[in-house]
């Protein structure tokens, strides 16, 4: 069963169910009997793919690893194998696909890392790598950096609704909504730039094996950015909804 307690840093072994031998936690095949290992204790999505926990991932490298591992344990290649190996291949392929999907996209990769590092709720145990429910509550709090924009936008949206009720032409409403979107889009661009910077900072810390005390503040800053981004996304979706009301 996958659960947040999957990776015990102190005990890097998994047990081969076939021969009973030990294998490194990130091995896919038993070093003793060469059989495919069922997914028992395993590492995380990064280590499963043989990647460091960096936030910048080289897309081609990720694709190549994904294809290479698929070729090693896809269920097609275990079709005639005994049931335990077939099951192991299904489990391992599923985990690989989930890992690939999560790490391919920078946004889900970041959220996954934050969960893995314990600064964000949700937990890496969830097979989908989707953000946990607990986060929902914190989304409601307006991030301080956005207070001004949110205020202005809400006023604007109220006015647009009033105007629509009093029969203003759709074109005029659309123009207002377009204008209202501008400051949010500007905020988003700034936000992306900040994220890029933090990504590079995290990767550099990781590379030189910086201690936890140095990493923690970067993780916290990243978490703030994620919450902020979720909020920006919601705001933009709100404008989008208002636009579609228009037609």
């Amino acid at each position: 069963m996958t659960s947040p307690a999957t990776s015990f840093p102190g005990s890097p072994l998994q047990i081969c169910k076939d021969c009973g031998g030990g294998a490194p936690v990130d091995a896919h095949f038993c070093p003793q009997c060469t059989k495919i290992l069922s997914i028992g204790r395993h590492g995380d999505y990064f280590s499963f793919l043989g990647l460091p926990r960096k936030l910048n991932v080289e897309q081609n490298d990720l694709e190549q690893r994904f294809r290479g591992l698929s070729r090693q344990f896809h269920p097609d290649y275990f079709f005639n194998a005994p049931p335990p190996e077939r099951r192991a291949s299904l489990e391992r392929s599923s985990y690989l696909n989930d890992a690939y999907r999560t790490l391919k996209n920078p946004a889900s990769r970041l959220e996954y890392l934050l969960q893995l590092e314990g600064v964000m709720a949700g937990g890496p145990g969830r097979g989908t790598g989707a953000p946990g429910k607990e986060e929902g509550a914190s989304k409601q709090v307006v991030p301080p950096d956005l207070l001004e924009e949110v205020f202005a936008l809400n006023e604007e949206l109220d006015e647009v609704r009033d105007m629509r009720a009093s029969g203003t032409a759709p074109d005029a409403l659309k123009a207002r909504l377009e204008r209202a979107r501008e400051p949010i889009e500007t905020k988003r661009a700034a936000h992306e730039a900040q994220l890029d910077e933090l990504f590079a900072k995290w990767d550099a810390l990781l590379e030189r094996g910086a201690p936890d005390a140095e990493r923690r503040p970067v993780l916290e800053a990243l978490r703030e950015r994620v919450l902020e981004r979720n909020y920006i996304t919601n705001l933009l979706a709100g404008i989008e909804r208002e636009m579609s009301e228009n037609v």
Partner: protein
Amino acid sequence: MSKVVGIDLGTTNSLVAYVKDGAPVVIRDKGGDALVPSVVSASEDGTVFVGREAQRRLLTDAARTVYSVKRFMGKGLEDVRDEASLLPFRVGGDAGGVVRIGLGSREFTPPEISAFILRDLKHRAEAFFAEQGEIDNEVDRAVITVPAYFNDAQRTATRDAGRIAGLDVMRIINEPTAASLAYGLDKRHSGLIAVYDLGGGTFDISILRVEDGVFQVLSTGGDTHLGGDDIDLLLMHKVLAEIGWSQSAEKVQEIRRDVIQAKWDLSEHDETQLNGKRFTRAEFETLIRPIVDRTLEPCRQALNDAGLDAARVDEIVLVGGSTRIPLVRKLVGALFGKTPHSELNPDEVVALGAAVQADILATGNREMLLLDVTPLSLGIETMGGVMSKIIMRNSTIPATGSEMFTTAVDNQTAVDIHVLQGERELVADNRSLARFRLRGIPPMPAGLARVQVHFQIDANGILSVTARELRTDIEQTIEVKPSYGLTDDEVERMLLDSFEHAEADFSARLLIDARNEAESVIQATEKTMRSPEFAGIAAHDLAAGEQQRIESALAALKAVLGGDDRDLIHDKMHELNDATKHLAEVAMNRSVQAALSGRHVNEM
């Protein structure tokens, strides 16, 4: 060793193929025909006919003949009510349950009807292998294809059909993906491919990346209710509007046959005859434009899901008979900005790919690997009738997802879960796959239980569910009630039933073979005589009275075709063959000359 095959179970036609010396080959009957019409008919005495014979019976006994059954797979009565009213056969069933189709005096579920077709393909392949001198000619394992956009219920229904036909269904694979395999866009190639598959009843678009022999689907889209059938219906409406709507079922089938012929003609010629009137390609294109346009939006969506511009796609592969229509080629070419591939027969390419996949599974051949995706998001019903997504669409399969549940009242020992598939917000707008009940949760205060429900989509794109209460680590029992499917017991019973109701016996089968062969000879002759260059041939090359001799031999064969005398059919067929021998030579020479002089036959 028993044999493995790949089967394309189509809306209009079905085919079977196998791999010979590393290359996929379609299995043909004696007349050289690879297509088995997906038509099933029952005679008064309960004998069941499949394929060409059943298709013929559409014109004489429409009410006892079933076609396009693929459109009913995995469906409930409420899904198909509108469509059923247009078909000559009975469509019934209980509200909220699986559809039942009347075939003669009995009722069958769509998987059972499909099983008749699959069994016919199985026999066809077995007869072929026996003739090849194979010692063990039994065909017991198969890969069967489905539209990429089929949901879980439709896939499961297809797998059930295979089981009822006595086949071990090794894998269900997607038609466009199979087609890409057959195109052999393999190790030598790499790049982005779009497969556009417009069949008889369904439309699919898949975008793939091919690299190192791995065929990875990036996104897929489509419409499981859009195809050549819709074009036929439009044309039938046109004719019925002209001659009056109240016609016998057999007359309607005759019209259907004629509009299909006209549709085919217009793929090759600029005009044809329909209902005794001139019908041009331009008129045809204006009429069907809305249908072709409906395929373009899913293409754009699939490109968007893959994060690609149309211009990035390197190659376009066309699959399905409807892609022979010039307008389809033109619009698809325009959307992607390049000319689509058409080297392989669009009717056969899917079966060829299925054979390749069957070979991979049976032999462990590792040259190629298919990585497909799930076409629709999977989720569960949450508070307020909203769907909560657990596995997103276009996720590479196999894929997993899990969700935590708890209890609402003290000592609650069971939880009900409703599984859904689709992209919409509200439960009511999505497909209900199954309802199940988690039982055996140990009694404890409300909210304390932590039941983890684990969803697994396997390499067939089919879902299975397991659950575990984490505090006590007790595995939960799950009773799944498929919303529009069959239980394992039902499938088992249908398999047994199918043994009891024997099909047409051996001599009946030989008669059918003879009719099929004769029919292909008739078709070939009529096609030649209808062709624009025939008038020229008749005037310059045929001897006096030769055309009359051909026509009377043709009429003689047609007259005996419906009878039960196999030898007589054979005799008349040979007479027609003799009569047309000279004509065939002349026609052949003309097209060779045309090819050599670089001119198209039509220009002569």
